[in-house]
């Protein structure tokens, strides 16, 4: 085959443009290019604001060198809804529905923290049964949030099946909360002084059935994710946050425990009646696959926490005392002058409220610390040097909710 044969001319067909013949390069010109390096440059890529792996509206500007991330800057604020400004423009009890909308996957936990802060400000004592109901609802919410996070994480890194499985159980959990509160995600059921609705015996049976179902399914999720070789390849040793980095950046929750820091607000700074239900805090061991502080460990901690939450709810349901679910409250609620700082353990980390009262019907200042806000900030230090695909794995494993980052 010699290259010098003439190319047969393409017969001209009306309406069809003949493909352009490639320019013939002289071999002598090619030799002049040998030894020269190709021109390379860093590329700035926008990930988001609408991106399937950003769990909301997050824009991350990434500087890339080929496939490697060299620097990145998250731009948040797309979902800013002025929660703190609204908080100080409304009477205390009217702010609670807005709290739900910060972390919309864990609304009960948000309400719980806000109510604790306001109650401590006003010196309100919550009835015993209401404390139990709060704890049960908060832990059911945690189970629902965690198994959803586990499934969605699979989705982030390319496994669709586990998402469909976890979504099934998660919906059962949300149905439970729906039966109490009348809403699927946003409940407004934990109120200042107690809870709005009581648990019925039927609900308790249903709750036991839900916990049994989740417990039965956990090995199945594991077979799909933690024991899955592809999942391990995608997560082990990826996005390692050391314990020191996690503490310095204010990372909290499962991400902190995955980095080997043994701290859980429910055990170490207990609120409500958590001190009556001792439980085991899962902290990343070094015996697992991968490195302590990587994406795999964060997923593992979440899975272990589901087991613990199931045990807490079971014990609380058995110990549920009879009685009132709402404290007697004055018609106009004016807490005395003062300030409080309350932190609670959200599924995503430590949620904190700092409330300042000047003795009026409205707070002087309502500050809220969203755990995802600090958890996403650490990405600026961890991500440089990883691949773009691993950045998705890293951000997914932190399980951020943008509604809470932006508040």
């Amino acid at each position: 085959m010699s290259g010098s044969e003439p190319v047969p001319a393409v017969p001209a067909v009306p309406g069809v443009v003949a493909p352009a013949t490639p320019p013939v390069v002289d071999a002598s010109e090619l030799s002049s290019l040998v030894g020269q390096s190709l021109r390379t440059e860093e590329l700035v890529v926008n990930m988001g604001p609408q991106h399937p792996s950003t769990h909301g509206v997050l824009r991350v500007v990434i500087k890339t060198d080929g496939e490697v991330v060299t620097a990145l800057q998250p731009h948040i604020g797309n979902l800013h809804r002025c929660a703190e400004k609204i908080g100080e423009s409304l009477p205390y009890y009217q702010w609670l529905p807005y709290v739900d909308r910060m972390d919309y996957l864990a609304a009960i936990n948000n309400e719980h923290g806000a109510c604790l802060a306001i109650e401590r400000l006003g010196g309100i004592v919550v009835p015993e049964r209401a404390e139990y109901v709060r704890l049960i609802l908060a832990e059911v919410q945690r189970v629902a949030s965690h198994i959803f996070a586990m499934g969605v994480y699979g989705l982030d890194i390319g496994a669709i099946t586990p998402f469909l499985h976890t979504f099934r159980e998660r919906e059962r959990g949300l149905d439970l909360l729906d039966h109490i509160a009348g809403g699927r995600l946003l409940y407004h059921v934990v109120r200042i002084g107690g809870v709005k609705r009581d648990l019925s015996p039927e609900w308790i049976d249903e709750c036991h059935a839900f916990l049994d179902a989740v417990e039965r399914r956990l090995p199945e999720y594991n077979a799909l994710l933690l024991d899955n070789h592809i999942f391990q390849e995608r997560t082990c040793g990826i996005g390692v946050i050391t314990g020191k980095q996690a503490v310095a950046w204010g990372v909290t929750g499962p991400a902190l425990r995955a980095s080997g820091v043994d701290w859980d607000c429910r055990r170490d700074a207990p609120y409500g009646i958590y001190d009556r239900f001792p439980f085991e805090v899962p902290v990343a061991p070094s015996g697992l696959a991968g490195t302590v502080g990587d994406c795999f460990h964060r997923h593992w901690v979440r899975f272990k926490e589901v087991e613990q939450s199931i045990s807490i709810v079971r014990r609380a349901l058995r110990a549920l005392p009879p009685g009132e679910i709402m404290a007697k409250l004055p018609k106009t609620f004016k807490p005395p002058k003062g300030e409080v700082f309350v932190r609670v353990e959200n599924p995503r980390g430590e949620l904190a409220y700092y409330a300042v009262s000047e003795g009026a019907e409205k707070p002087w200042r309502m500050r809220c610390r969203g755990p995802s806000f600090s958890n996403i900030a650490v990405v600026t230090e961890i991500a440089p040097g990883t691949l773009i695909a691993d950045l998705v794995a890293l951000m997914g494993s932190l399980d951020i909710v943008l509604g809470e980052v932006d508040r």
Partner: protein
Amino acid sequence: MSEPAATPSAPAPAAPADPVTALAARKLRAALGAAVLEVVETGRHPYVRVAPGAIVAAATLVRDDPELAMDCCHLVTGVDWPAKTPADGPGELEVVYHLVSYARRPAAEVLRSKVKSDNFLALKVRVPRDKPEVPSVMGVWVGADWHERETWDLLGVRFTGRPPLRRILLPEDWPGHPLRKDWEYPVEYHGIPIIPPEGR
């Protein structure tokens, strides 16, 4: 509904002092002297207030002291305190640092007591409203970065000695700092009419 509006009594004066705040106050006084302006050891929210110029020294001390070991800046908050009357001067902006120590383990008797936690400390700084400049603690706790940016964004506290402050939650061209008590709603933003809550 019981009335009148129950104003539950403030904590009794004999309330026990918060051990961490008492310890921190003692150490800060020894190191900084007159820069420690106010110490509240009892009540629901104990804190230590230092002079704005001494905040970085105070932060470094409470972080590096092995007994305090406040290794995490949990939250930075700005609070606006405008003057009640124009004669009182420009008013003040307060910055509150909520610090947490993960190195300190809570003792069993603390968990059983009403305090529940002894790894927590609050530092405060007050600056005049017309010149709200506070040295940044980003060099002490890197995690304070975004919290300081948020405090700048919403309250207009200028943190100095750090990478340039950019807004974080609001758009770059947003007028003013909305959590200041005298902030007024703009009439419109890029052609979008804004109706303040009172007019709704």
